[in-house]
């Protein structure tokens, strides 16, 4: 199992209120699998995704990515682990505003020890693949939303991760661009990677092999979409 989430909970405690953002959620994503988590706004999707990505330590429960619990690692090792195993795609793209498309895509190479030339060759290949060839020297502000999300997607793929975590990646895209992106995610899964997509978008859900519904931080009911699921 590439991603294994086992009974994780996360509570946000403010001075006056306590929010159980994620409450005892378990979820597995195998290699080659495209899983969508669907839920209303505030249901805890982003919280769950960050915990899965080694960016937010659960209050309880365990996470394993590629057989390794990232929260057992020291911060620097965890960062490197993320760089090697996980690609992120966000609704807000989160591109570095002053770097060109090429440099943005190359940024994850900073986190791994790999010859610059190899990273560069792969970046150019991804640019080609995602149709950004004539945009590679542009800064994000000069790109369309679709181009930005494709650039973000290319960045997520630079270090050839096993797992892609996508948080509402189509939220800022029109239909065509959304379809294109979802196509790329499907391709990644088809090629043997694991995809965990969190969204409230039904069309995005339609691309997934399996959908998990999240309601108030808890999994509501398992829905089988295409392939058989293992609970």
């Amino acid at each position, binding site marked *: 199992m590439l991603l294994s989430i086992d009974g994780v909970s996360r509570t946000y405690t403010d001075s006056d209120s306590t929010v159980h953002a994620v409450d005892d959620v378990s979820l597995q994503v195998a290699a080659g699998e495209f899983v969508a988590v669907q839920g209303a706004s505030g249901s805890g999707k*982003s*919280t769950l995704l*960050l915990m899965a*990505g080694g*960016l*937010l330590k659960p209050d309880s429960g365990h996470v394993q990515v590629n057989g390794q619990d990232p929260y057992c690692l020291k*911060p*620097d090792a965890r*960062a*490197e*682990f*993320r*760089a*090697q195993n996980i690609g*992120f795609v*966000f*609704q*807000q793209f*989160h*591109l*570095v*505003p*002053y*770097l060109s498309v090429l*440099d943005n895509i*190359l*940024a*994850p*190479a*900073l*986190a*791994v020890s790999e010859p*610059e030339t190899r*990273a560069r060759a792969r970046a150019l290949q991804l640019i080609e693949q995602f149709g950004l060839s004539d945009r590679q020297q542009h*800064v994000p502000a000069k790109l369309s939303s679709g181009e930005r999300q494709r650039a973000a997607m290319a*960045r997520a793929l630079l*270090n050839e991760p096993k797992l892609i975590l996508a*948080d*509402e990646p189509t*939220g800022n895209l029109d239909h065509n661009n959304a379809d294109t992106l979802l196509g790329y995610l499907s391709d990644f899964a088809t090629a043997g990677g694991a995809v965990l997509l969190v969204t409230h978008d039904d069309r995005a859900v339609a691309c997934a092999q399996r959908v998990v519904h999240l309601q108030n931080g808890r999994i509501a009911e398992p829905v089988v979409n295409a392939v058989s699921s293992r609970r």
Partner: protein
Amino acid sequence: MTVWRLAIREIRHRKLSFLMGVISVTTAVACLVGAQTLLRADRVITEHVLQVKQTEVESAIAAKEESVKQAGAELEDAMRKHMKGLGFNILIIPKEQSRSEMLLNGMTATMPESYVDKLGQSRIVTINHLLPSVSQRVQWPEHEREVILIGTRGEVPIQHRGLKKPLLEEVSAGKMVVGYEIQTELDLKVGDTVTFQKQEFTISEVHPERGSTDDVTVWINLKQAQEMLGMQNLINAILALECDCAGDRISAIRAEIEAILPGTQVIEKFSQALARAEARAKAKETAETALTQEKESSQAMLLREEQGRNQLEQQHAVFAAVLVPLVLAGSAVTIFLLALANTRQRTEEIGILCAIGLQTRQIILVFLSKAAVIGIMGGLFGIGLGYWIGWSLGGLSGNSLDWQLLFAAGDLLTTIVAAPFLALAITGIASWVPALLAAQRDPAVVLQGG
């Protein structure tokens, strides 16, 4: 892709924030270097000014000294001339000669003529130009009038000194020199022949009016006078000229003559020459006093100048001591605030860099690289600006002073060399905390919005 490239891209992207950082470092370094240059320029100019003033004063004093010396030489020369014109001022007479008697009736006591030779052969130093004389108030029967008859011979040389140019020509036998009154009353002129007590004399010289007994005096050869008066080998007095000696002259003269000629006494005749000499001596003394005063006042002037310059330097130093740390602190705070604002602005970017796996030290390095660029650029600009400001304000631009003097002491050079490191340290320290804060920021908070 490197962290360095990331930092440079960011600088190019947010030029204003970078520029403000550079300006604030430039200000700090310019202030430091400017103050140092100014203080050093103060010192150089002080040294220069004092040296110029010193030279001026010295040459002025030298000129004054030269003129005093010349005045002294002129005085000496003038004294000689006046002495010659107005006669002798030391009178050596026999001890038994009563002064009242002498003043009322003229010389009465006598002493041997050999005294003058004795004096001449002595090693006397306090007097000059020995002139033996006889002097009597006598009747000039041929003209039925009284005159003072003085017999003199040529000056007796003082052996150990060699003969000086005599002040008076000898009145040779058969010749007569007459005073003004006699000359006018008897209507005499040089070359006339007169008869005095049945002896014939030729007038060899007539004196101009002197307003003294000289005007009723006739001078003839000593020997003839002695015979005429029945005073063979006797004299009434020896006239002499005192030396131009310092100190209590008359007692020195008395002591010396007393030792050589015990049977004599010495009278100092008041003479106009003496008065003039005294006046001149006084003038010389005044000139010398003026010179000393000049020396003292110029010394005081130099001291005042130096004190003034020192005061100025001190004021500048105090000003710098207050201003420089203030500006340094101000810049450090500005850089800190700029860096803090920068990290806030970059929250999203830091979050994503963390998410994609950059390590804490790499994030810190991104910020410190930027701080280094700001520090070095600000440091270099600051040196240039500060040096220029110090040079202009220090008043060196107007002077033809060698700029290398500024670096002679080495402290300015040290400051300039150290300035970029200082700038680097300031920006580094001021940026350190914001960089740490940036690296500690939880990426989850930023990324959750997606």
